[in-house]
């Protein structure tokens, strides 16, 4: 799970896009998913998600994301079909409209979750920060705060996994099937996680300061983030996705 957020190096088409274009692409897919009300179009968008994963060379990650979302999707799906009463009865208390509505909700959830995670997996956080500062003129301090938060996610997840392992070693049964019970057991562990996090964040801030954090400005970046023809193409794809969602 934790390597989902870890950067995957490569030289795919997606890697060549401007970091901002990649984020735009992810946002556009999400937007299209929420605008569109057509079941087939939604299925198409999900396919597009997987295509992005394939293009970026992280199809495996896309699949495991999909797998991870499946559990919660099934739960949502069942909840939906049990509560929607409109439409013709198909089976027991389940109606055709209920089935369609449930499918749409679940599809939207999956479509919206996958692309952002995928784009983060193929985008270096520092590139994103640099591009935000250079191209979008975001003040470095804000860009740094956002990117640091993202950078710490895998570290925290790793830390949490290690803490849970340490607790398992002393006999706390995390392998229970009862989800609520598991959450109850995890709560006390937030204390060590918090203590470590505060210490870490402070150390990270001191280290960044020592290497001239405060001196950084828009012209500091050594790497440039120009827009290429493929970025233009990607923007067109974004526009097409949203237009398609509105029309169909």
């Amino acid at each position, binding site marked *: 799970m934790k*390597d989902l957020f*870890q950067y995957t190096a490569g030289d795919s088409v997606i890697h060549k896009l401007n970091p901002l274009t990649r984020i735009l692409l992810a946002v556009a897919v999400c937007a299209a998913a929420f605008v569109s009300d057509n079941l087939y179009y939604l299925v198409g968008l999900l396919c597009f998600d997987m295509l992005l994963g394939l293009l970026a060379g992280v199809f495996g990650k896309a699949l495991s994301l999909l797998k991870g979302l499946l559990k919660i999707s099934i739960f949502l799906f069942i909840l939906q079909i049990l509560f929607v009463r409109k439409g013709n009865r198909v089976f027991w208390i389940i109606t055709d409209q209920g089935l369609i509505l449930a499918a749409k909700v679940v599809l939207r959830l999956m479509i919206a979750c996958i692309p952002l995670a995928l784009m983060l997996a193929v985008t270096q956080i520092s590139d994103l920060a640099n591009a935000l500062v250079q191209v979008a003129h975001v003040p470095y301090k804000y860009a740094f705060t956002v990117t640091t938060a993202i*950078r710490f996610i895998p570290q925290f997840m790793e830390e949490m996994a290690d803490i849970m392992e340490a607790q398992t070693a002393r006999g706390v049964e995390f392998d229970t099937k009862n989800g609520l019970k598991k959450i109850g057991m995890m709560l006390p562990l937030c204390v060590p996680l918090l203590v470590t996090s505060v210490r870490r*964040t402070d150390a*990270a801030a001191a*280290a960044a*300061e020592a*290497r*001239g954090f405060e001196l950084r400005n828009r012209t500091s970046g*050594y790497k440039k983030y120009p827009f290429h023809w493929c970025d233009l193409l990607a923007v067109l794809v974004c526009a097409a996705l949203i237009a398609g969602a509105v029309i169909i």
Partner: protein
Amino acid sequence: MISIESLTFQYEGSTEPAVKDITLNIEDGGFFGIIGPAGAGKTTLARALCGIVPHHYKGDFYGSVTVDSMDTVDSKMTDICRVVGMVFQDVESQIISSVVEDELLYGLENYGIPHEEIEERMDFALREVGIEDLRYRTIASLSGGQRQKVAIASVIALRPKVLLLDEPTGELDPGSSRQVFGLLKTLNEKYGITIVVIEQKIMLLSEFAKELAVMSGGSMFCHGPVREVLKRARELEEIGVNCPRVASLAQNLHKEGLLKTPVLINVDEAEAAVRRLIS
């Protein structure tokens, strides 16, 4: 290069000073080791050397620290850090980027190194640390020892006059630890970079450092050339600093009247000394 004049520092919100009345002179081009039991104030002293104390960690600061004729209290932290590059204890939180190359770029960009000079500086740092092959690797794919080297490279790319390291081998195995110290030795001898290193592994310090400072309970217990300090092996053990086994052997042999000076700093020396005695 660095002179510390009766430094006392107490962190905000703390009831006791972390370091008390420290006076120390670190010569240009030296290789300086700092050792002491937990809570001796080693990390605080290191922070004071590069201005992080009192600029980032606030508190009551008495006395003075002068780095390259800059008073650390009156100067900006970034100006001091350019002279004294620090490698922090927790490498994980020091590393900012996800790829080695970007990690090196970070400091260079911030300090406004002219872009045409950047390539050369990166080559220099990667080559000297011996990680040229790791340039495009992701940090996540590196071992602990390799990460430590990346942290060192990203600091020496800034060409500091002093390299300050806080327990750089804490998480490393004996082989990688020796490698890191070998690297420090090269930087010291080849480029005259002053090395100041906090370290628990006394064996490494006695072999590589030229001078040693022993701290205890926030105060300076003693300091001087490694041999002089190791002569006080018994006292050091009392405050919780162990000695290399060959140093203890030297003390024993001295007591038996077999060895004139009660100090041996590595196995080579011990071998030579014993051979003289028995053949």
